[in-house]
């Protein structure tokens, strides 16, 4: 029986027929982002209080309205303009609809107005429980709004395979061929000893050990990718 993959990816099928993979962010990262946002908000409160204190009575009125807006709509503003609050952006997260599209005003309002309930009984208790029980780490506000907090995808750097092509043994399955090419493209990102360690697993395939094994595998990969 094949073991289930431990993967947090959530797949979305697009109208064009391809599957997009998004990785929802877990409670720890979101909690840390919330801390950063709270600090920013407190800083803004203090700053505004200092500035508006100069204006006396009228200033207090404006300050109260500003505090109201900051308390309820600080996340909404950032979600609609930048896709995520500064705290979330610091961790590379973004808020999207569950179909992968950028968040709209209705969903943003719903998820943020329901924060009061997620915050109960103490410091996002309900929200945390909801995130742990939900497959996609959604808190109550996210579920009602149909939104997800996902990691912004960032492309990784991969090496170009430069070795001389060597014909691999016959009968390699497509997945195995893919694994060989992947290995070759990752060589720049892993240490030399690690590369040798991985290559040694395939000693039966290459018939070599150590650096020669690595060279042979790179040759196989080159053949598979380019043919010559």
């Amino acid at each position, binding site marked *: 029986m094949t073991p289930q993959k431990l993967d947090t990816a959530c797949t979305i099928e697009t109208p064009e027929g391809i599957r*997009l993979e998004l990785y929802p962010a877990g409670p720890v990262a979101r909690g840390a982002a919330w801390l950063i946002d709270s600090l920013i908000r407190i800083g803004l409160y203090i700053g505004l209080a200092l500035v508006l204190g100069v204006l006396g009575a009228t200033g207090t009125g404006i300050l*109260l309205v500003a505090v109201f807006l900051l308390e309820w709509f600080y996340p909404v503003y950032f979600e609609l303009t930048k896709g995520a609050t500064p705290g979330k952006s610091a961790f590379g997260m973004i808020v999207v609809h569950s179909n992968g599209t950028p968040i709209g005003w209705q969903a943003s309002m719903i998820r943020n107005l329901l924060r009061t309930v997620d915050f109960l009984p103490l410091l996002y208790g309900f929200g945390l429980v909801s995130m742990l029980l939900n497959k996609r780490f959604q808190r109550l506000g996210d579920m009602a709004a149909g939104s997800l907090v996902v990691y912004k995808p960032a492309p990784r750097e991969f090496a170009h395979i430069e070795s001389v092509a060597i014909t691999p043994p016959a009968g390699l399955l497509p997945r195995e061929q893919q694994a060989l090419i992947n290995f070759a493209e990752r060589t720049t990102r892993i240490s030399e000893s690690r590369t040798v360690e991985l290559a040694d697993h395939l000693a039966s395939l290459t018939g070599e050990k150590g650096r020669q094994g690595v060279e042979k595998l790179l040759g196989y990969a080159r053949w598979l990718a380019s043919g010559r």
Partner: protein
Amino acid sequence: MRQTQFQQLYEASWSALEEILDSLESGRNGPKLPPESIRRLPSLYRDMCQHLALAQSRCYSTALIEKLHYLALRAHHQLYKREFRIGKRLLEFMVSDFPVTLRNHYRLFWLAFVLFFGPGILFGAVCYFNPDMIYAVVDDSSVAQMEYMYNPDADHQTGRQEGMENASRVSMFGFYVYNNTGIGFRTFAGGILAGLGTLFFLVLNGLVIGGIAGYLTELGYVDTFWGFVIGHGAFELVAIVISGMAGLLLGKAIIAPGNLRRIEALKRNAGQAVILISGAAGMFFTAALIEAFWSPLAIPAAIKFIVGAFLWLLVFFYLFLTGRNRDAA
């Protein structure tokens, strides 16, 4: 076909797509492309989706698949995002979306109305005939605060709490916005707990407000209290009912989802509820304006009552009659 050949064949169209995406993502700051180039986005995207599917089924390297996947995400983002233009949308919302949505759920409106005014009026009557009953719901200091605020013999501005007597009108406006809209939002949010939170807030606020009204009327503070509240009461009390109604919509999705899964019913109702709570927020804002700038004015109570009645009619007609041509369509 080998991976390298595949890449060489389609590299050009991928770069073109990437260029368009870079231009769109950097907005006004970045490089500008002519419209004819940008118009190629959908067809380039469709082609690239085919390439991605091919790469996945042929098991090309993960690097290539990830690269195409990332392009797909970016293009999907650009193609399916919605523009958010405030001005016209706001007017449309106020005149059409909000009243129409309200009337669509009229039963819940009346339920919230009864849950709020029912206990309120009953308890108000109770407190009128037996003033000591007010202490069952409201604590001593708050009752004393209310007496202080609406005492006709006081030498301070009517309706001001102790400590805020000399605050400017603008600060009071800010205070009312912060305080009252917050109550409305919390009443709404409570709805997700199967409607129980909303129920609790509606009934509690009804009891408190009704009780205070009955108590102060018994004391004879009629002109000060009723004169003060009749003006903004139209907007504020109805806004509380609408917040409750929005919360009950959420609760209904959980308790009685009908043919849908609870989560689907919740999403659908939440979409409707957010229109209601946004409208209610606007009404709270209006109520705060009236409460800060009109209600405290020292003019004869009779005039205040007439204007108050007029405002109640205004709210009624707004909710009942606006956006009717949209209904018929």
